[in-house]
C-alpha cells in the first residue's frame, strides 16, 4: 500500500489502523476531514484520532469499509455484526456519517 493512498485511524486506546483512503472515504465525515480546504492538522499528517471510538468498534468499521468496497465490486457476501456491538456501532456510524 503506497503511503499517499492510505490514512491512519487511531482509536481511543491509541490503536492505529492504516487503511486505504478509498475505503475511508466511505465515511462522509472522514472524506470532509481530508478534503477540507483548511489545512487542519489531519490533512497535514494523514491521520485522524477518534478519542470516543474504541478499538473494537473502529476495527469493525474498517472491516465494514472493505466489505462495502468488495460488495460494490460484485462479491456479495454477508457482513456479520455481533449484537452487543450494535449500539456502539450505530452511534459511531452516525458520527462518521457512513
Amino acid at each position, binding site marked *: 500500500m503506497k503511503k499517499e493512498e492510505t490514512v491512519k485511524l487511531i482509536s481511543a486506546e491509541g490503536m492505529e489502523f492504516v487503511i486505504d483512503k478509498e475505503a475511508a472515504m466511505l465515511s*462522509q*465525515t472522514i472524506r*470532509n*476531514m481530508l478534503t*477540507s*480546504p*483548511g*489545512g*487542519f*492538522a*489531519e*490533512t*497535514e499528517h494523514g491521520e*485522524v*484520532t*477518534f*478519542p*470516543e471510538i474504541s478499538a473494537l468498534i473502529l476495527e469493525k468499521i474498517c472491516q465494514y469499509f472493505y466489505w462495502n468496497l468488495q460488495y460494490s465490486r460484485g462479491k456479495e457476501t454477508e457482513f456479520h455484526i455481533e449484537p*452487543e456491538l450494535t*449500539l*456502539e456501532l450505530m*452511534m459511531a456510524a452516525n*458520527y462518521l*456519517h457512513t
Partner: protein
Amino acid sequence: MSNQKKRNFHIEAFKHRVVVDPKYAEKIWSILEHAIHEIYNHNASGLSFEELYRNAYNMVLHKFGEKLYSGLVTTMTAHLKEISKSIEAAQGGLFLEELNRKWNDHNKALQMIRDILMYMDRTYIPNTHKTPVHELGLNLWRDNVIHSSKIQSRLLSMLLELIHRERTGEVIDRGLMRNIIKMLMDIGSSVYQEDFEKPFLEVSAEFYRRESQKFIECCDTGDYLKKAEIRLNEEIERVTHFLDVKSEVNITNVVEKEMIANHMMRLIHMENYGLVNMFLDDKYEDLERMYNLFRRVPNGLSITRDVMTSHLREIGKQLVTDAEKLKDPVEFVQRLLDEKDKYDNIINQAFCNDKTFQNALNSSFEYLT
C-alpha cells in the same frame, strides 16, 4: 451467562451518557467560537478537525443546536462587520482588490466552518427549517458587507466607472471585474440584477444616447453604421469576458435601441448618403451592414423593404417615361432586366437572400410590367 451479558450490555449503554448541563454546552461553544476566530485569522493548521466536529456533534446531539446556530450567526456577523470596516478603509483603486481578497477569504472560511458543522447542517437545520450554513454565510456577507451603506454605493460606482473607462478606450483589469461580478452572482441573481445590472443598463442607455447623438451629427450613414457595429460587438465581447451571460440580451437591446432604432428614419433618408444612394452607388458592404443591424430592431427590415419598393417604382417610372422618349422597346427591356439583375445581386449578397426582399422586388417589377 447470557443474563450477565445482557446486563453488561445495558451498563455499557449508560457509559455513553455525557453530563448534560449548560456549563458543558458553554465550554464546548467557547471551543468552537475560538476555532471560528482562528479560521478567520488564517490560523487553522493548529486545529483538529475531528475535535471540532465532535464538539459540534455533541452539542447538537444533546439538544444544544439552538445555541450553536445562534452563536454561529453572532460570531460570523461580528467578523464580517470587522471585515467590512477594513474594506471601507481601502483607498481608491485598491477598494475592489481588497473586496475581492476578503471575499475569497470568507469563502474559504465558510467552507471550513460548514465542514466542521456538517452534523448540524444534516440534522438540526432540516428539522428546524433554518438556513443551511453555506447559504447563511452568503446571506450574512450580503447583509453586512455588500449592503453596508458605505460599501454598496462605492462598489457600484467603481464598477460603472471601470466599464465607462473601457468604453472610452482604456484597458482595465478584466480578471478582477470578473471575480467581483461572479461574487454578486454567487450571492444571488437578484443581488446581481438589482445592485448592478439595472443601474448598468440605465447608465449604458445614457452613454449610447449621447454617443449616437454625437455621431449622427457628424457622420454619414455608412460611417455611422460602421461605428454602431463596432460598439455592438464590443458590448457582446464584454459580456463574454466578465458579465453574466444573461446580460447579453439586455445590453444589446439597449445599444440597438439607442443607436439604431432611435435614428433609423434619419439614417435611411439621409441626403446623399441614405439607403437610396447606397443602391445607386452599389455600396454592397454598407448595404450588408445595414441589413445586419436593422434586422435586430423591430420594423427595421420592413421599413427598409418599403423604401426599396418605392425606390424601385421610381426607377421603373423613370424607365417607362424614358422609353417613351427613346421609342426603343429592346433598350427598354434590356434596361429593365439590368435593373432586375442588379437588385437580385444586392439581395443575394447584401441582404442574405432574404425571401421577403425577393418577394418585394418581384412584386415591384410586376407592378412595372
